[in-house]
């Protein structure tokens, strides 16, 4: 059984059909890519699966649990971690706080514990700090743990965001253009990080990318989305040689 399964998902924004009959099956430990021109509906698909929008039609299953109709915070704690195209960090919070924040749903102490400082609260907070520091170390940003995110260079901010998503211990990690706006050096580092996450944690990854090189090197299977519809699905080689994909990206003349 697939880890994450989406069946016949369709979504309308008013009269506009943004996603049509979208199908997805991610196996445990698989790295999947989603490519397509701007406005094809890639981020919409992320938003639909993570519960920000409710799909008009279709069914979403994560590890045997139906996600349809669940609130975003429930879906997140069920096991979908996510990064964002424009990062969405909390600018004036520290790096460590970002990662600890994502542990929210893993902590169980209640309000009484918070007010009276029970042993359980201190133990859980300490444990979550330990996990956070370990993730920051893995991302290579542990030395700036106490700094405010705003002051970090762009590449480091991306790593903090990645650590934040990992802190939720997701079953599937969604990466929305993880290399957007990066210079070539940062790009290579980010690719190494994604490989490392996949290798060390064995985590299933679903990523949206614009840079062909990243998708082709990292993903085992790729979907191409155009106007909300998957026009091609396959291995990197298959996608690269698919005439429909070349057509969508480069225009008709090239094919003819």
């Amino acid at each position, binding site marked *: 059984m697939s880890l994450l399964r989406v069946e016949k998902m369709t979504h309308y924004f008013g009269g506009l059909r943004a996603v049509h009959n979208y199908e997805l099956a991610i196996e445990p430990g698989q790295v999947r890519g989603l490519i397509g021109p701007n406005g094809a509906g890639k981020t919409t698909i992320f938003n639909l699966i993570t519960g920000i929008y409710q799909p008009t039609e279709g069914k979403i299953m994560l590890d045997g649990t139906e996600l349809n109709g669940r609130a975003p915070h429930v879906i997140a704690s069920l096991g979908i971690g996510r990064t964002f195209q*424009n990062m*969405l960090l909390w600018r004036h919070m520290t790096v460590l706080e970002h990662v600890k924040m994502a542990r929210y749903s893993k902590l169980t102490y209640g309000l009484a514990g918070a007010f009276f400082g029970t042993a359980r609260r201190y133990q859980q907070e300490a444990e979550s700090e330990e996990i956070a520091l370990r993730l920051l170390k893995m991302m290579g940003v542990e030395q700036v743990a106490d700094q405010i995110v705003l002051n970090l260079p762009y590449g480091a901010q991306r790593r903090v965001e990645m650590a934040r998503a990992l802190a939720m211990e997701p079953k599937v990690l969604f990466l929305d253009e993880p290399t957007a706006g990066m210079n070539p050096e940062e790009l290579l580092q980010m690719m190494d990080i994604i490989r490392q996450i996949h290798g060390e944690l064995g985590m299933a990854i679903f990523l949206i990318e614009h840079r062909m090189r990243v998708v082709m090197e990292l993903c085992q299977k790729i979907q191409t989305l155009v106007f909300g519809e998957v026009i091609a699905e396959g291995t990197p080689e298959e996608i690269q040689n698919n005439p429909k994909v070349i057509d969508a990206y480069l225009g008709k003349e090239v094919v003819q």
Partner: protein
Amino acid sequence: MVFFQNLINALQWGSFYALIALGYSMVYSILMLFNFAHGDIFMVGAYIGFGVSTALVSLAAMGAFALPGWLILVLTIIISMFLTSFVGMIVERVGYRPLRDAPRASAAITGLMIGIILETGNLALLGAERVKFPSLIETTTYDLGGVFVTNKKIMIVLVSITLSFALHQFIRRTRWGMAMRAMAFDFAVVPLMGVPLNRMAALTFALGSALAAAAGILFGVAYPVLDPYMGILIGWKAFVAAILGGRGSVVGATLAGFLLGFIEMFVPMIFPSTLRDFIAYTIVLLILVFRPHGFFGEAYSARLRL
């Protein structure tokens, strides 16, 4: 001497402003709305405190249990804070949650309406007659070389500083507080990190209302006559303090509350007291002109993104 006497009074009024301002500030920073009913929640808190303390006093008089006055006061504060937090959660659930995606102006107007409903609801329930807050502790006046300080004033200032500090610690050190801070920076992304938005909104209103209730009871201790409109002017002034402190800053709202108390008390030392609020709020306006984000606020955009 006059200076120190005014200082004591400023600290007392600053305590009221600070406690109420914290509620405004938290709700504003997290949900991007001004809860204009907050001054009236202060009023409701004072009345709940009146009800609780009257009940406890009559129970004690009946000989059910003989509690000393100060213990009744402590119990009144704790029980009323708890009860008023539910008033805040109901206001959020009924008045604000359905309007979360509505234009901010609608939510602001909701606040005004809820305020009027609370005021007139109180009138309908208890009538137009003012009620007298029971006297729970004897006033003792200490003469510190010509400056007169009462035990009540000391208590008011201590309680308000303690509660502000407790809130500050809560926000800095707990997962709930951390979520509240994160929501202040980016509201939309927080649920995707596994944090339940509605529960956080309810919690924010509950905390703010509990602090307003504490302010209401302290106010009742200092000025024992309560009326349904007591929350309006003090609520507006605390709102000014919240803005002056800066969005979402607990330290800022507290300090600005006290600053407002100081300005209000010291202006009459120099100018005629009839001009007190006129001059005091002109000064506040000037501060805001030069520091539009308040003392501790950072420049921000109110746009929600995803």
